[in-house]
């Protein structure tokens, strides 16, 4: 696969629609149409069920998020990470807690019963569902969407009207994020939004601001650690290359420490409280992987029962060293060449490496590598579109549990339709490979729907899903690493061009 030609118009349906608007003097409506479609898709997905709807006693993520609104508004701050931990104890860092507090306060104004301490547990009502859905939508459109638009403006540059709109449309129609945040129910767009703000700040050269945003992301969900190494490597690389490197290094260090300090000082000044937050956020004792996830360890365990053969401690070391091995090459590369395009690839490779090899990974964490992958969709079109489709497939066992099969099908078809243009630029063997992959997935879906699993292998379909997804993710990890290494010589990014011209 060679890189696409720098001038490209074949953007499929999106391109055709924009072409129509352009030739009929309707260019100003282009972004409005994107926003309306994105909003419509999100809202209609949110009409579906959420995780744990009507499944006592614990319900699911929806109840967890609602419960955190309850405890943060009803209890003194010290109690947030201590109160009745067995029932959805808060296990995300402080910004999530603050965010829950804000949403809880607003919710209380509408209906205090939704967030009443203890009595509101397992509450399910139409009004509550709608309120929670609206908070997810509002969070996304306040934090994430503006960052997407600014990113596209910066990434594509002026004069590339169609390219920019296509990029925005594709990023906003990314199916996995929509179905997890608005279907399953979570606030991933907040963490991803902060990360995207950090990326925007980095590629525009606002390094100090970027470090503030990244600390926000880390403090919203600890999963942002997947990105930490590439971001650190990029910043360090910039410090080494820039004229006032040491000064920048000191500035960054002070900013990071100050932001952390402020966030924690607002919570408590007592060391035991802060240690309790960390104990909740990093639960090492939980095991190598949780549930069935398209992760190397889970895939291997189909053949070798790792947990029975080795001690927990040695598994931690094994996973740690494998992760480092997977992540280090791309991070070293971005350290040596701290440029926007390499940064995105390094973020992608770093987070995908973490996803595949790290300890305690959720299937939803695939959203982390998906963010930089989708941002790169005009730079590595086919691989990015393919990755999104496979990721959607890997989420299927989770979505089926949440009764989100219909939106799963519709969103995947929509994604395949709007990204169909990416097929045109790939070599025939790759096309064949992708077609075989998609047919296998379809066949597995049909089998699962029609043939019940054998009694001795009740999880066979889930395991098939895990094996297939892990294999494809690993392939993609290799491919994206390769892309990162060859990107050095390709100047397909206008920002890189400008910088090179200046030099």
């Amino acid at each position, binding site marked *: 696969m060679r890189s696409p*030609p720098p*001038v*490209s*118009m*074949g953007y*499929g*349906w999106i*391109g*055709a*629609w924009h*072409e*129509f*608007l*352009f*030739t*009929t*003097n*309707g*260019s100003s*409506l282009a972004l*409005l*149409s994107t926003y*309306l479609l994105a*909003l*419509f*898709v999100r*809202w*209609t*997905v949110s*009409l*579906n069920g959420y995780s744990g709807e009507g499944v006592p006693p614990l319900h699911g993520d929806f109840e967890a998020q609602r419960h955190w609104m309850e405890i943060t508004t009803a209890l003194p701050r010290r109690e947030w990470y201590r109160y009745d931990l067995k029932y959805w104890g808060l296990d995300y860092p402080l910004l999530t807690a603050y965010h829950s507090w804000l949403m809880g306060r607003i919710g209380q104004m509408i209906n205090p019963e939704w967030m009443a301490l203890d009595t509101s547990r397992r509450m399910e009502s*139409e*009004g509550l569902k*709608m309120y929670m859905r609206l908070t997810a939508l509002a969070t996304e459109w306040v934090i994430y969407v503006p960052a997407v638009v600014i990113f596209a403006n910066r990434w594509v540059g*002026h*004069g*590339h*009207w*169609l390219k920019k709109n296509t990029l925005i449309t594709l990023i906003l129609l990314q199916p996995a994020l929509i179905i997890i945040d608005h279907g399953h129910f979570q606030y991933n767009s907040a963490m991803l939004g902060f990360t995207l703000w950090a990326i925007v700040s980095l590629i525009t050269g606002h390094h100090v601001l970027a470090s503030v945003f990244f600390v926000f992301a880390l403090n919203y969900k600890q999963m942002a650690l997947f990105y930490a190494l590439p971001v650190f490597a990029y910043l360090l690389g910039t410090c080494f290359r820039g004229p006032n490197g040491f000064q920048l290094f000191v500035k960054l260090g002070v900013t990071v420490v100050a932001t952390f300090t402020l966030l924690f000082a607002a919570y408590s000044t007592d060391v035991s409280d802060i240690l309790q937050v960390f104990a909740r956020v990093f639960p090492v004792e939980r095991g190598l992987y949780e549930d069935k996830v398209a992760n190397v360890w889970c895939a291997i365990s189909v053949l070798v029962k790792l947990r029975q053969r080795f001690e927990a401690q040695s598994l931690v070391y094994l996973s740690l060293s494998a992760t480092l091995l997977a992540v280090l090459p791309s991070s070293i590369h971005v350290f040596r060449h701290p440029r926007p395009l390499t940064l995105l690839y390094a973020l992608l490779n770093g987070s995908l490496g973490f996803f595949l090899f790290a300890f305690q990974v959720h299937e939803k964490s695939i959203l982390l590598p998906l963010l930089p992958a989708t941002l790169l969709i005009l730079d590595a079109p086919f691989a990015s579109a393919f990755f999104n489709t496979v990721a959607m497939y890997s989420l299927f066992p989770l979505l089926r549990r949440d*009764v989100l099969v*219909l*939106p799963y099908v*519709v969103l995947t*078809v*929509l994604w395949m*339709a709007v990204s*169909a*243009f990416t097929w*045109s630029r790939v070599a025939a063997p790759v096309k064949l490979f992708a077609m075989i992959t998609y047919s296998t997935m379809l066949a597995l879906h049909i089998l699962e729907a029609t043939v019940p699993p054998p009694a001795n292998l009740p999880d066979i379909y889930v395991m098939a899903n895990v094996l297939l997804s892990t294999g494809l993710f690993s392939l993609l990890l290799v491919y994206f690493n390769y892309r990162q290494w060859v990107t050095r010589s390709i100047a397909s990014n206008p920002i890189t061009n400008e910088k090179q011209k200046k030099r």
Partner: protein
Amino acid sequence: MPRYRNLLVRASINLKWKRNRNFDLGIGSKMKQRRVPRTAERASSVEESETGIVTVDTGKDSQPWSDILPIFAFATLVKLLLIPSYRSTDFEVHRNWLAITHSLPREKWYYEDRSEWTLDYPPFFAWFEWTLSQAAQLFYPAMLDLDNLEDQSWQTVLFQRATVILSEFVFLCGAERITRHARTRQQRVLLVGLIALSPGIVFVDHIHFQYNGFLYGIQLLSIAAMMEKRHILGGILFAVVLNFKHIYLYQAPAYFVYILRSYCFDGGFFSLKRFAAIASSTLAVFAISFGPFVKHIPQILSRLFPFKRGLCHAYWAPNFWAVYAFGDRIFIQVAKVAKVPVSQTASLTRGLIGNTAFSILPDIQPIHTMILTVLSQLPILAKLWVDATPATFLDSLILCGFGSYLFGWHVHEKAILLVLVPLSLTVERSPKYARAFYILTYTGVYSLFPLLFKPAETITKMILLMAFAVFGYHALKTLHSAR
């Protein structure tokens, strides 16, 4: 403008690139584009002369479905997303009809009343439900159980919603048929889009739940036949749609006058042969429909025309009688202030079905509404008699529907579609018609808002109305700026 110039230059380069690889994607790229010599004539348009690119519409010879299927695909996607939306009692009504037609012999279809949602559509619709029930049997037999009332299982929802979506393909066929005269491909795509992507149908069929799409599709086919002066076909199709849903009776006067004048009066003389032909062909449709039920016709008619129901439907149609009822309320307040005793029994449209009694203004009987309706239709019918052209026929369809909507007995607000669908066929005539269509569709769709009253639908409604407001406007503007 200058920054867009870049885009067009890129477009041209890319088109060459694309042509070389011989593939195409989507609507726009399928339009044949070619370089045009810079003649003085072409240079009149700045953009064309600067870039040398122009979109050449190839009109009728091209494959029309390649333009129209993407619209259908997009519409289907929107409708699939709407599947979990709020469903009105009409959902259970249609499920119950599935059960009735499947479980009972046809003699009992119109007598069954275990559910309050009795079968009250003409026989063709009953047969339609029977056909669906054959498929439902394979998919999820439990929904066909007569006593399984209020079945809201996901299988039932998926099945019924999917049948609405699939049957709406007929609507698209109607839109395709009726826009064949369009001069350019772009014009055609715009017209099909304006007809087939109306939020009104989406609201009523895909959220509220009904099967209007395919009925309007048959009506479009019938209108198309009429406009091409294939009166017998048009008459048969209209008789068919009447036997699916009798609400189309409101527009029957227009059909009657048009057929009589432009077909039966051949060259100024009444042709008995033609009259016999059209009468026998349309009556044959009725015979096929009601024939198997010949012993039960009085029962069917009592189901089809329930004059026991009140003047205003439980969900008010914003028509003349709503204003009348409002006037009554005002007079009650006036009477209170003036200390004039009034009967307080007035229970205007209280409850689902019931008589409407007014306190001060005179009570209204079905016959009054009928007279007013006919009076409102007379002017356009008179014009149609004098000027029996396809254009006037279309106008009289619209106005007959509108008159009935405004003055009819027990009108549903959904009946506004009877006006909006034919109105969408007139938008190409002139900007004036386009304007009327835009304003009336916007208002009509807005008038459907109370139909979808759940809070979760508020956002859906607003997005769809806004999409129509912006992109409908843009389509209409494009349609008229191109000429």
